[in-house]
């Protein structure tokens, strides 16, 4: 077992973990942060995307021990509470950007840095930015609409 101390959504956590524990499993099973979803576990579906020091990354392709000392943001870190959603979340709500919701946390965490880097994206750029996240409901049009709406709200 190896001790790790990391900051998640501004809060510090220390735990002892096996080196083989994936960061995605650490978040869910050790810390109970179930917002980060696990789909393919080989980096393809994007459901487990989180921010590592502000940059998007697949939490299923990192070991928890690697996150020692790092600062992580998960989907739980976006909104203060359910009445104060992040404008990106609010936009997904308003534009019906989700059906079953399984892919949503990963999409939100991919779109946060994307919109920071590109505050006025075209529809093509949004579609390109979404290409690393799979939605099995295939409701992509509403997801694209939601990201577009968010870019307007966040101006």
């Amino acid at each position, binding site marked *: 077992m*190896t001790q790790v101390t990391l900051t998640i959504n501004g809060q510090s956590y220390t735990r002892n973990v096996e080196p083989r524990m994936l960061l995605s499993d650490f978040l869910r099973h050790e810390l109970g942060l179930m917002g980060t979803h696990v789909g393919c*576990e080989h980096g393809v579906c*994007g459901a487990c995307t989180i921010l590592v020091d502000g940059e998007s990354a697949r939490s299923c392709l990192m*070991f928890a021990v690697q996150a020692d000392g790092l600062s992580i943001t998960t989907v739980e870190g976006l909104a203060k509470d359910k009445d104060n959603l992040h404008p990106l979340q609010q936009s997904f709500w308003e534009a019906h950007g989700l059906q079953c919701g399984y892919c949503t946390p990963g999409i939100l965490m991919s779109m946060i840095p994307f919109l920071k880097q590109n505050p006025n994206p075209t529809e093509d750029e949004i579609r390109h930015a979404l290409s690393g996240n799979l939605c099995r409901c295939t409701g992509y049009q509403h997801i694209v609409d939601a990201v577009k709406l968010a870019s307007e709200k966040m101006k």
Partner: protein
Amino acid sequence: MKPALFEYHAPRSLEEALTLKKEHGDEAKILAGGQSLVPAMNFRVVQPSLLIDLNRVNELSFIREDGNTIRIGAMARERHLEFDATIAKQTPLLHEAVPFIAHPQIRNRGTIGGSIVNADPAAELPVLMLALNARLKAKNKSGERWIDAQDFFVGMFTTALEPDEILVEIELPFSLPRTGWSFMEVAPRAGDYAMMGVAALVTLDEAGKCKAAKLVYLNAGDGPVNAVEAAKLLESEVLNDKLIETAASMASEKEINPFGNMHASADFQRHLAKVLTKQTLQKAARRAGEMI
């Protein structure tokens, strides 16, 4: 879908990492960005008994100019290559190609050294190393050696590295004067593994004749494939559509050896190679012509 047990080391210095590699050889896998290794471990296709994580070896994360070369530490992230101003200016082919590597979420973690050592025939960076005449520095406990990219890739997922060696640095010569570039690939979706991809470079002389050309292909054999015969056809000639067509036929019919997969038959891959060769050569020649 969970990795098997392994021992984990996260050395803080290269020296420490080299000591571990010497002690454990092939039993120890280097963990760089982990964007290919960790999926393989999750599937248990790969079950190393020991991981040497280089993510805390800060001395391997650099991109700097040195004379007429760019030196890149093996742990430089692909995302950093993408936004580096020196790379954009001095090796524009690399700058153009990096955004084709998977998705930003992957490039944020993936490293240049990791992708090169993984030596996936479908990956972009091995192709680019060959196209750019990269030299690769390998180190072990007792010393270091430089390996030319063309000698580094020896087969499918196989490199010239010895079990006790670690790739530490990549040296890229600046693009030559009057050299045009182009990188193109065709993938089922943006960010997917490409069915075919080509890196092309064309250097013109002052009169506008082709002095040298380079064509390197991904997913076209058991490593990056350098189409030397097709490139030779272009040398000392003024490039025109007919010549480019001939070179594209030579490369796509005689020099590459695609295997075909679930997305594309070998025939379709050859077809893509021909189309992409023509398009990349035209673009590279046009860019070179604008520099005369």
